[in-house]
């Protein structure tokens, strides 16, 4: 690609719990597909969307594929900015330790693992959203 390629800031906002609807899985697939386009991509988890990143998900009882391990691949797809809404966690009695750790590997530092997760307040989140060119809500 040339230097003139336009890079836009895309944010995918995940608001729903992982298995009640198809939104969470669809969002994840869109994110992985669009990662091929070299844009500036970030993901936000807010409202019930924070449940998408819960550790130890068990889906046998509902007969659905457990896709939670796929979030760990986001770093491989160069998606390094994950925003978690702190108030959404608080309202649900959750903390970061209930969620999976998401990391990306820095090739320039011998593949050192660096955290992709940013815990932000709603005020900060709204600020970050304002800086985006495109916000897609799922």
């Amino acid at each position: 690609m040339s230097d003139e390629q336009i890079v836009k800031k895309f944010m995918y906002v995940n608001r729903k719990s992982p298995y009640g609807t198809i939104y969470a899985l669809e969002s994840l697939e869109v994110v992985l597909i669009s990662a091929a386009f070299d844009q500036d991509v970030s993901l936000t988890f807010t409202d019930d969307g924070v449940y998408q990143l819960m550790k130890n998900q068990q889906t046998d009882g509902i007969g659905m594929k457990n896709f939670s391990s796929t979030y760990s691949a986001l770093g491989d797809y160069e998606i390094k900015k994950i925003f978690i809404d702190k108030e959404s966690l608080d309202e649900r009695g959750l903390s970061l330790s209930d969620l999976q750790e998401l990391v990306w590997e820095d090739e320039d530092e011998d593949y050192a693992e660096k955290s992709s997760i940013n815990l932000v307040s709603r005020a900060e989140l709204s600020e970050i959203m304002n800086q985006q060119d495109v916000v897609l809500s799922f």
Partner: protein
Amino acid sequence: MGLEVNGKTYETDEEGYLANLNEWDTDVANAMAEIDGAPLEENHWEVINFLREYYEEYQIAPAVRVLTKQIGKKLGKDKGNSKYLYELFPYGPAKQACKYAGLPKPTGCV
């Protein structure tokens, strides 16, 4: 569609991808490669085994550039480039190697 190996018929989709990835074994991979006219060698197996491990861990088949990068990390830079991978899998490293590995087509591939 189906693929017959050692007297057993495996269900596949219209592009030859295995319908049930639990049915996969090395004979299936060899039979698929045989049909395409290029028997599998050690270098192919490195990539196929990598893909199966990646799927096991992340539940997805990686996109081609993720595959390239990760192969570079795991098997060395001389193998983590598209020239090498396309020589091994001329129909597209992600597509063709995923098929032999019994995985679904990589997300985003058309």
